[in-house]
């Protein structure tokens, strides 16, 4: 088709026939909406902003947005991420119900409208409802068309804080089992809904007041329903990134998240990142050294991946026994599960569903009840921030994710 069908022959006749005047001059008299039963009806006139001089007319969608916005009161700033500021908030008519309001920053570098992180987070959080996935309670836009995501408030920090606070936070195998169980269920649910998270790490596992772990930050998520489509390999924070992505695979599945889950598992046990490479090359080298060198023998086809390069000295894949010394705290069954999550060949890696069926969950010790799980110690807010800086992984990606990774994501797929 050569000519854009949108250059319709008639279109010239449809230029605005008169100058557009200010939308703010009068109030409307009827705004359609629908009540709780889905039956549309007319509420009374929308009122204008008090003390505003010119009255502001609101259309139905604007009115709905105003109402949604007014349900919440925004308080102090809780933290700042790459693409959003997060504020404490509460429900206006019930101040004891706290929420977190994630306000998407207007990104200077991203010129193409609503930022990819925001679009993804909005899309997936709206659809995924599960006890171990952070709940999206509402969405509204504030002035200047900033997107605000109202999230459930998760006051007890994140898993990274607990892992790092070696001096003050102590935990054992039952606690790890509980945390891992919640993480695995969250990942299973994502995958069962054909969603890849693509940024699983302790810092994105937030903790609710009752100790429940919630997978958060869906800014890199995507659906993998369509196996034929190419995806970017440039996802997942490096320490948690699986070998297939480090080798530039463009077709992948849930196994990428499972590797990250394995890395979190290992980190929970040794209380330090298991494979903390400073560069991608170093990351690959660490994998080869600690897990084994990916070869055609243990991973048919791996040498065909675009960026496959490994250190010349080939390390055979370590067996379970090799992990017992360092990771034995979770017992032989736990180590068995760990080893399965870090299978080099993604086809051989355990799935989330299989993880949930693993015998480790049912062997002693029992997973700790969430109410009894260790919590972050006092005064941790500052510490959390410090740790974050110290631990400040990946300048190139985490700090500038929106600009660098996201823009590369599936660019041009639409064509």
């Amino acid at each position, binding site marked *: *088709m050569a000519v*854009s*069908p*949108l250059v319709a022959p008639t279109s010239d*006749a*449809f230029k605005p026939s*008169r100058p*557009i*005047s*200010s*939308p703010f001059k*009068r109030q409307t*008299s*009827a*705004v*359609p909406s629908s*009540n709780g039963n889905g039956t*549309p*009806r*007319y*509420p*009374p006139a929308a009122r204008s*902003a*008090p*003390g505003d001089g010119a009255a502001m*007319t609101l*259309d139905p*969608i604007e009115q*709905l947005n*105003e*109402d*949604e*916005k007014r349900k919440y*009161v925004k*308080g102090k*700033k809780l933290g700042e991420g790459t693409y959003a500021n997060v504020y404490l908030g509460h429900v206006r008519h019930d101040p004891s119900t706290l929420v977190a309001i994630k306000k998407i920053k207007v990104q200077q570098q991203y010129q*193409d*409208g609503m930022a990819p992180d925001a679009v993804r987070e909005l899309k997936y959080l*709206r*659809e995924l409802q599960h*006890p171990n996935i952070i709940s999206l309670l*509402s*969405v509204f*836009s*504030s002035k*200047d*068309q900033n997107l605000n995501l109202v999230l459930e408030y998760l006051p007890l920090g994140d898993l990274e804080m607990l892992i790092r606070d070696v001096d003050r936070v102590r935990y054992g195998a039952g606690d790890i089992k*509980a945390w*891992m169980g919640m993480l695995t269920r969250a990942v*299973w649910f994502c995958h069962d809904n*054909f969603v890849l998270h693509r940024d699983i790490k302790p810092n994105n596992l937030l903790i609710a007041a009752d100790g*429940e772990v919630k997978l958060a930050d869906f800014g890199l998520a995507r659906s993998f329903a369509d196996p034929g489509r190419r995806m970017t390999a440039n996802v997942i924070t490096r320490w948690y990134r699986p070998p297939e992505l480090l080798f530039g695979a463009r077709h992948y599945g849930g196994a990428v998240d499972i590797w990250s889950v394995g890395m979190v598992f290992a980190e929970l046990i040794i209380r330090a990142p298991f494979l903390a490479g400073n560069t991608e090359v170093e990351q690959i080298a660490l994998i080869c050294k600690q897990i084994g060198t990916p070869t055609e023998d243990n991973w048919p086809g791996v040498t065909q991946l675009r960026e496959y390069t490994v250190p010349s000295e080939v390390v055979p894949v370590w067996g379970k026994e090799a992990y017992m010394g360092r990771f034995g705290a979770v017992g032989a069954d736990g180590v068995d599960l760990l080893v399965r999550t870090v299978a080099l060949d993604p086809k051989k890696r355990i799935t989330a569903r299989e993880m949930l*069926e*693993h015998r480790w*969950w049912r062997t002693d010790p029992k997973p700790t009840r969430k109410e009894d799980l260790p919590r972050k110690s006092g005064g941790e807010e500052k510490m959390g921030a410090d740790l974050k800086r110290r631990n400040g992984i990946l300048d190139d990606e985490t700090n500038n994710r929106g600009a660098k990774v*996201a823009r590369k*994501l599936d*660019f*041009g*797929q639409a064509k």
Partner: protein
Amino acid sequence: MAAEDARYRQTSQYQMWSFSPTQLAAMRENTNAAARTRIAERLASLPAASNTTSAPTSSVNTPDPEGASISALPEFLSAPEEAQLMNFYTLELLRAGDHAEMPDEIKATAAAFFRRFYVTNSIMTYPPQEMLIVALFFACKAEGSFISITEFGKQFGKDNPEDILAGEFLLCQGLRFAIDVKHPFRALRGAVMELSTLPDIERNRLVAAEHRAREILRFSALMTDAYFHYTPSQIMLAALSLADRGVAERLITQTFHYVAPPFTSNNNSGSETPATSGPDAPSSNTKRNAAPRSSNNSGEDKSQIIGSHIRDKVLGTIEACRDLLSKELPERREHWTNKTVIKAQITPLRKKLTKCRDPDRWNLVELQRVRREQATKKGGGSDDGEPDDRTLESDAAVFGEALPVPPKRRKVGATDGGGGPGEGKGDPFGGPL
């Protein structure tokens, strides 16, 4: 089907964007009526000078008890007229998507966005010719393709990115920020795979049926209100049935011969959530137990769903969906682009539209500029304070519908058996979406 159904009820598509035909018609009537009122007011308040096209000039000396502004009002589009234009513009959207060689999913998402937006917004208020481009652009993003706006615009001869971006947020708001659209394409793929394992279905016949069904999904399902009324698997089955009734019936028979596996105890989640076999953490079931339907999700339902009365109900729904789709069979593409038809049916409506559009909303770029200006004035610069309190007095009571806990609307279609084991391998309704 049961598993899909339980899942489908969690989607924003079901919770926010599924309506019965009656509901949908009522909403459109209301949208149309409200737009007329607003536009009438806005037009009436325009300075007389800019109103000359339609303002009478002879009333200067003759006092008119009805008021001059009333007689100056244009003729508005009726709701059925809007509906007809809506179809015309939906096809424009599909053609634009073809022109840019977009994948089916993106075009379909864009079409769904577009039609959803105009359920609560009149095409007299916001310009459909522009909003359809916005819908295509945002659909790319929603489907994970983050194309640059400049490149995107070029394909449609739009050199100024603002022309498209100005409508993006508006569209999102109109969608109530629910931007995930569930399509029947995957269900069709699954169904065909299922059918291809059956010995009694001829290969060529299946290929032809799939091809035709896909054409119907790419056109008929998008040109009608099918997405508002039916689940993806119902739409798929209806399309397949239109393509080859025998094949579709074979699939349905196959489904209802499916024998439920022995049921595990442990409430409802035993099969849906393997979590129950995982750690015994108390959380594993809380959400599902809290869900309104969970108590029904047990073996009882499963036995019902394979029962014949359910099958009949399903068949009825699919028949209804089939009727709907058959109103816009793929051949109708020619109809909507036929010059004579356009001239006789569409052009008059578009001419009418030029006279009755909303003077305050039609120009998206200008609208956004004014909104932003207003925002900076109100917010006093920083957007992060808490000036929100100074905006409107609450009309909250008037609007029951919030994103978080949307009201359960009517059940979509007939498949209310709900929530059986998710492992139905013989289930052509596609397992989970």
